[in-house]
């Protein structure tokens, strides 16, 4: 027996229970409302053909939230909503003792919404989204009893199979869009032969068929459906009758007018469908679990539908729509009775059931009606479905050979299904009552929910409602592409179909009579689990492969990097093309400036190289500082004064936090890391050096090519240069680009900087181990340094103010100002110790500073937006108000941006300093973050 979700439901029950009956009725409201609304709309659909509502969504991508309701959609939507309402009510009683049942209702509701969206979607990609929604919902429902290992693996199986189909569907839709130029369903359906004549036809056909076959459990993708019986029975009933598996059928029927009517369509669908029909019918007979038996009969029925769609005749589509309706009705009724039996007796194993007709007469009535319809016996709607089905096989439009095969398989499958229906109903309700089997009819809502579709199976056949016939005709016509006549008369005269039907029924009765012997014979010839074994083997193979792949992940940073650098070198050697230089050496004057430049470059190179040679980390850091300062000198010689200034302060800050971090590291670790440099093998060092030289050579070549082909006229630079004064009021073009033209970049930049500070802060202050806190907090005793500290802080602040105010006119900007003040603060830390500095400099509150900086940047951008109608278009208040301001300073939004940068950078930098400087006393870290 498969995992029983009902016991799982019970086992997690609480004494209070769960007002699930109320929930059931409440959740039945949306589908019921949808059902009524669809009924009200149905006449208009029948008159007008298709109702379309479209809301533009992402027009540039051709995405529209469009809804299209035609006969086919309406038939499916009515089934989804009508059965959905019954299922919710049923679930209300079913899940009474399960305190977590809100999950069940939620998932069912997702299922309902996705399915209804799928059938009314008017845009391919909308359809795809809902399609995936049904996959996810059925995954959640199948894995509902999550503590049960079987349920989990069944859920995974269903997601893997149907999710794979979803990918195929997306690919098919993309190809359809590229072949027809539209993702709109109406336009595609009106495209005539475009798809059939397209060179993409075969890929589209295969992908769409894959999607439909996985969803509709066609052989060999059927494996997820029987395992999916771990879902709570209301969900199974819904999944089998109206949602999920019907989605694939809907897709095929939907696309038939543009994809069908070809040889390949016929062979792919008919072959798969016939095979699935026989396979499901054959295996269904060997099942002893009520739900599994029903699952296999669903597979068989889905095979029938696929086969019929492949035939592409008017009568085949007539058979499709009748079969869809008949199957939905009897399958939901039978699943719900199976659930009732399970719920009341605690088992759904046919070997333990029997003789329940007296104990549960209402349930028995529903089961008998459903079973008769499933068996295709008169006077049920299922009989009508089977008669139409058989008449398609004897239809003169097909070649006689195929006719013969189809007729044979249909008769065989019909006989098997009849025997199954007999086993199901008789095995449960007829015969002697089993020992210790206590049961009675369930609460009214549950019973009524099961009886309604069962009764409808009878009613629709006996009372020929004209509305149903015309709805079915509209649905069949929409799927076929041209009008189809549908009459629902039970008696269609004596002919070959009736004769075949009689043969099928007699065969089925014989099978039923010798059912146990047939089953024993089937056990000898075990074919059922072949595909499942294949699936298991495939999964095991993937697992083994991934274990191998993980073994490649050695976790050594250096080796990963080496591989990447090596790849760079190899790519460069393979694809690097030397560009002939367009050198203009004459324009480079060889004067004092050039000599200075060469000198600075030499120092940069030498001091960079020194970081390798110097043994102690501290010395290497100082060499790094020297190298950075000389990079700044090079920038200054460029001349690029703004960049040079930023480089200087950044270099100092880098050195400071590196030294801080180094001194705060435990001495033992530091010594060990220091020693590492000499423990590395010579071979390793040589290899690294070769690799580094390779990348360096590549970089040098790129740089040389770039430099030798300069200068090139740059339109962008020209644009900025001409407009910086006029538009931004800035003499400093670089400043104008950073603050105004590319203000948004700068906003992101300071956000990154602040975030890096916050990240460092949270890593070190929340993550560090607690160590001896007091040792680090000494500070310096030198009176000279102390008085110097008192002087330097205000000085730095004045300097920063100047940088911020005249950022647009002279070198320097808010960033430089922020780092300078932060450096002054770190000087205080060094001189007075962290504790005292914090007490004295109460205004240094890193987090509030950073946040207010970012907020100000947004506010100033909004001000420009409200004044000018565009973000980051500067507004000069000073000139507007006619204020007498010093030359070069403008009270504008650009100035506000400089202030914002200053604040954010000061905040971010102090966060970094705070955390790297004092990783050891986490309490003070926390308090500094919150601004004390």
């Amino acid at each position, binding site marked *: 027996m498969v995992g029983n979700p009902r016991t799982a439901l019970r086992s997690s029950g609480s004494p209070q229970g769960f007002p699930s009956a109320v929930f059931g009725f409440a959740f039945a409201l949306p589908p019921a409302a949808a059902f009524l609304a669809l009924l009200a709309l149905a006449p208009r659909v029948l008159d007008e053909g298709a109702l379309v509502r479209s809301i533009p969504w992402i027009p540039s991508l051709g995405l529209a939230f469009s809804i299209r309701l035609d006969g086919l959609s309406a038939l499916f939507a009515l089934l989804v909503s009508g059965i959905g309402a019954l299922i919710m009510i049923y679930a209300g009683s079913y899940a009474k003792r399960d305190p977590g049942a809100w999950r069940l209702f939620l998932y069912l509701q997702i299922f309902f919404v996705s399915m209804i969206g799928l059938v009314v979607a008017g845009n391919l990609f909308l359809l795809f989204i809902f399609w995936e929604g049904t996959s996810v919902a059925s995954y959640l429902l199948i894995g509902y009893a999550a503590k049960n290992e079987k349920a989990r693996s069944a859920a995974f199986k269903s997601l893997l199979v149907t999710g794979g189909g979803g990918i195929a569907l997306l690919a098919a839709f993309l190809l359809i869009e590229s072949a027809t130029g539209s993702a709109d369903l109406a336009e595609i359906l009106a495209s005539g032969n475009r798809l059939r004549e397209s060179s993409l036809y075969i890929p589209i056909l295969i992908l769409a068929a894959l999607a439909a076959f996985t969803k509709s459990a066609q052989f060999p993708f059927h494996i997820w459906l029987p395992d999916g019986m771990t879902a709570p029975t209301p969900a199974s009933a819904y999944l089998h009758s109206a949602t999920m598996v019907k989605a694939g059928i809907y897709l095929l029927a939907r696309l038939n007018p543009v994809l069908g009517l070809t040889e390949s369509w016929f062979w792919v669908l008919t072959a798969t469908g016939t095979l699935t029909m026989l396979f499901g019918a054959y295996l269904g007979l060997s099942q002893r679990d009520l739900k599994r038996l029903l699952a296999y009969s669903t597979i068989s029925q889905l095979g029938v539908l696929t086969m019929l769609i492949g035939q592409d005749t008017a009568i085949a589509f007539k058979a499709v729509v009748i079969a869809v309706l008949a199957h939905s009705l009897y399958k939901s009724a039978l699943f719900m009775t199976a659930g009732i039996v399970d719920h009341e007796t605690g088992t759904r194993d046919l070997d333990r059931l029997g003789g329940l007709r007296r104990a549960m007469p209402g349930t028995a009535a529903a089961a008998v009606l459903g079973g008769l319809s499933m068996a295709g016996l008169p006077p049920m709607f299922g009989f009508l479905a089977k008669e139409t089905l058989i008449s398609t096989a004897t239809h003169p439009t097909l070649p006689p050979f195929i006719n013969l095969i189809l007729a044979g398989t249909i008769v065989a499958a019909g006989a098997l299904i009849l025997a199954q229906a007999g086993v199901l109903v008789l095995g449960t309700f007829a015969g002697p009552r089993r020992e210790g089997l206590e049961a009675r009819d369930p609460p009214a809502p549950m019973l009524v929910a099961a009886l309604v579709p069962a009764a409808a199976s009878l009613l629709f056949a006996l009372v020929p409602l004209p509305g149903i016939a015309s709805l079915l005709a509209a649905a069949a016509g929409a799927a076929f592409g041209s009008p189809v006549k549908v009459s629902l008369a039970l008696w269609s005269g004596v002919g070959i179909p009736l004769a075949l039907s009689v043969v099928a029924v007699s065969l089925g009765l014989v099978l039923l009579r010798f059912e146990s012997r047939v089953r024993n014979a089937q056990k000898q010839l075990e074919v059922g689990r072949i595909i499942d074994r294949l699936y298991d083997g495939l999964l095991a193979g993937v697992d083994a492969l991934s274990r191998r792949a993980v073994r490649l992940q*050695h976790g*050594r940073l*250096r080796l990963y990097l080496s591989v990447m*650098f090596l790849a760079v070198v190899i790519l460069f050697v393979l694809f690097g093309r030397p560009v002939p230089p367009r050198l203009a050496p004459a324009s480079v004057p*060889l004067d004092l400036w050039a000599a200075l*430049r060469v000198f600075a470059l030499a120092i*940069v*190179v030498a001091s*960079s190289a020194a970081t*390798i040679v110097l043994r102690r*980390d501290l010395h290497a*850091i100082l060499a790094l500082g020297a*190298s950075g300062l000389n*990079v700044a000198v*090079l*920038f200054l010689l*460029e*001349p*690029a004064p703004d960049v040079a200034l930023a*480089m200087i302060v*950044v270099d100092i800050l*880098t050195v400071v*936090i590196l030294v801080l971090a180094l001194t705060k*590291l435990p001495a*033992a670790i530091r010594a060990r*890391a220091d020693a*590492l440099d000499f423990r*590395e093998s010579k071979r390793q060092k040589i290899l690294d*050096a070769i690799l*580094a*030289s390779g*990348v*360096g050579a590549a*970089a*040098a*070549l790129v740089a*040389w090519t*770039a*430099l*030798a082909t*300069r*200068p090139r006229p*740059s339109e*962008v630079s020209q644009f900025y*240069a001409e407009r*910086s*004064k006029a538009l931004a009021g800035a003499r400093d*073009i*670089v400043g104008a*680009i950073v603050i105004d033209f590319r203000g948004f*970049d700068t906003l992101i930049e300071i956000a*990154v*900087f602040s*975030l890096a500070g916050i*990240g*460092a802060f949270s*890593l070190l202050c929340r993550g560090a181990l607690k160590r001896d806190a007091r040792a680090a907090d000494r500070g310096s005793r030198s009176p000279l340094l102390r008085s110097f500290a008192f002087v330097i802080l205000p000085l730095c602040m004045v300097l920063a103010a100047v940088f911020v105010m005249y950022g647009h006119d002279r070198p320097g900007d808010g960033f430089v100002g922020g780092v300078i003040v932060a450096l002054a603060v770190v000087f205080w830390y060094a001189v007075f110790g962290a504790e005292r500095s914090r007490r004295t400099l109460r205004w240094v509150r890193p987090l509030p500073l950073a946040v207010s900086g970012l907020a100000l940047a947004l506010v100033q951008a909004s001000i420009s937006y409200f004044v000018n109608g565009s973000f980051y278009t500067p507004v000069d208040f000073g000139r507007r108000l006619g204020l007498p301001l010093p030359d070069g300073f403008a009270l504008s939004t650009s100035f506000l941006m400089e202030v914002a940068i200053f604040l954010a950078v000061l905040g971010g930098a102090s966060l970094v300093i705070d*955390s*790297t400087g004092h*990783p050891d006393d986490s309490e003070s870290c926390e308090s500094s973050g919150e601004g004390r």
Partner: protein
Amino acid sequence: MPVLIAAGIGIVFAVGIYQILRRNLIRSAIGLVILSNAANLFLVACGSRWGLFAPYSGSPAQTSDPLPQALVLTAIVIAMGGFAFVLAVVHVVALRGRTGDSDDIDRLKN
């Protein structure tokens, strides 16, 4: 001149990469800074018109190209932020894992 500058940039690049590949994490951090210096040098040099004037509007004659400079200005700030974060990570590795060896980082998973 371009040859000299290109060679210099290449050497600084190589030094940065060699340092990044060291086992000592502090050296790797140093390598990161050197590498970003080299990249910035390259960018700014690309904008060079061998002029003697900074890109200020109203400057006479030839000025250097302002666009690469603006790019580098942003790059410097971002590199600084990234470096600070990397340093914090190194620090945490040192304190938690009691190691400054990049080959030991894998151990921290457990």
